[in-house]
């Protein structure tokens, strides 16, 4: 019975897998490998996915969640804890694809632009993709080094640059910790709203629908939450110039609530 359900659901399963690959920058053989891996996992478990399904939610949503959960396991097995940045999520599918290829797979910007551009008829032009790539936070690709590799690794940059980098690193930690404390003190739903809006990059209207809230009231509510967070940060001694400097600092991917809601960082700046 479950096998028949599996066969019936194959077109839907293929669409979910295709969506997941697109959203995560898997192309060609890699996408095919993931598709086979998913189906194999389902078959090997004797279609347990379908046996567990009770119809409390729709099959579309259920299979989407199942495949996305499976993708996370697949991703960890292949690339460790790497995941798309909040900025890439906000910028959309093509940005995620570019970021995956650049910071996860180690392609150059030009190679990533060419790959994404040729993968879909709907892809933006090369120039637009380059502009998109320029908006992504610079992230250092995770590399595995043995002892030999570590021996060859030398510090780069002048002593002054390294000192500066260390200062900024420490400042980033202070800001992040202050932010985490502030967010952790929020009501559960407020915390979820901020996370969905700024970390997952959902539109306000989607957040509202997801939580069964009135979209028109949600915007001022978010603004109110941000005002509270801003006050907390100010109390912790964080100033907007500090945050701006950190955001300018390449290599930093701050998933803070300073962007988005008002359209500009200045709208919710932490300086008075």
């Amino acid at each position, binding site marked *: 019975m479950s096998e028949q359900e599996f066969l019936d659901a194959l077109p839907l399963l293929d*669409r*979910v897998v295709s*969506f*997941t690959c697109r*959203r995560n920058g898997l192309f060609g053989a890699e996408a095919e490998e993931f598709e086979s891996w998913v189906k194999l*996992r*389902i078959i090997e*478990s004797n279609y*347990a*996915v379908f046996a*567990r*399904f*009770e119809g*409390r*939610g*729709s099959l*579309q*949503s*259920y299979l*989407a*969640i*199942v495949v*996305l*959960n*499976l993708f*996370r*396991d697949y991703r960890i097995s292949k690339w460790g804890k790497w*995941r798309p940045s909040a900025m890439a*999520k906000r910028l959309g599918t093509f940005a995620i694809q570019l970021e995956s290829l650049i910071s996860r797979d180690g392609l150059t910007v030009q190679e990533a632009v060419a790959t994404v551009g040729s993968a879909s008829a709907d892809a933006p032009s090369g120039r637009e993709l380059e502009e998109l790539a320029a908006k992504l936070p610079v992230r250092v690709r995770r590399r595995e080094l043995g002892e030999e590799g570590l021996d060859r690794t030398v510090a780069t940059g002048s002593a002054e640059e390294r000192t500066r980098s260390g200062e900024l690193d420490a400042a980033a930690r202070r800001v992040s910790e202050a932010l985490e404390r502030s967010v952790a003190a929020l009501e*559960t*739903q407020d*915390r*979820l709203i901020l*996370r*969905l809006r700024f*970390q*997952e*990059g*959902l*539109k*306000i*209207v*989607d957040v509202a*629908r*997801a*939580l*069964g809230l009135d*979209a*028109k009231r*949600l*915007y*001022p509510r978010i*603004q109110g939450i941000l005002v509270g967070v801003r006050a907390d940060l100010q109390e912790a001694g964080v100033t907007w110039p500090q945050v701006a400097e950190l955001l300018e600092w390449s290599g930093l991917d701050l998933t803070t609530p300073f962007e988005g809601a*008002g*359209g500009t960082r200045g709208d919710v700046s932490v300086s008075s």
Partner: protein
Amino acid sequence: MRSPAPRPGAATTRACPPAEDLAAFLDLRLDGNERREVESHLAGCEDCRESYSEGLRFRQEEAAAEDRGAGAQRRLVIPRRTWALAAGVLLAAGVAGLWLLLRDPWTGRTRTLVASLPAGRELAKVLGPAWSDSVWSLTRGQTSSLMATPAASVWLGARVVDLDVALRADDVEAARRLTRELVEKLANRGTPEEQVVISYELLLEELETGSERTTLLEGAALAEVLVADGVEPTHYQVGRWLEAGRLASLVGDPSIYRRRGWKRMVELLSEATGIPLELADAIGSLPPRTAPEPAATRTAIERLLAAFANGEVSLETGGA
């Protein structure tokens, strides 16, 4: 909520809700405590939040694909709607030109459009009591009650009509483009952004997934936001007349402007420009639901525009 169970194939290390609970939450099928428990978990679990938000995006993509399929079928059944929109889009450039020509008279120079009308009181009558003060100011050449950028109000009026037609014609792309233009314009005018953003996002949402009726309602809500905050109502209305009249004349559908006295407004404006006959006649002679005659009416409009451009007619004198 049921007791947590391991995800299929996942090495679960925390009490994540089963996939089916997340799916039910995504579909808004959980109530009360169950819902609050999932909310609470999502607030603290990045993995589940990622699956949930991506699942939401997948559902939106599926819904949009279904809507596009349904939309394509509707357009096949009612080709006139698409044609009407295409004509509307073609008109946009012409309207922009007319707006530029109208801009000077509205912004600080002594000339005012309605002051040159011989039928200012008739204008007030058509507009109704709510408009009397503004019309009175205009007919007296007083501009102190006007916004600093009334030309923008004319532009907004024209765009809102375009948007209305695009929504009715079920052309999602044109409606999205027009909506973006409107939002950008409003953002530049300092309208409270949150109102615009909310209305804009709701409209985009409805364009993707909603029914025609809800889409129209959201379009109307956006228009309300535009008008409610700082748009000078008379100029805004002039923009609506002009665009409605032009659309009507080119598309050949008088119903576009028969509501709210638009036809009469176009006639009055034509009269004020000194070359009323071709345009007003072209519009006035259109029988209901006839095949359009774009060539004839376009000629009249082009002549009107050229007359402005060449200085053959001015709004100040009301004639050549």
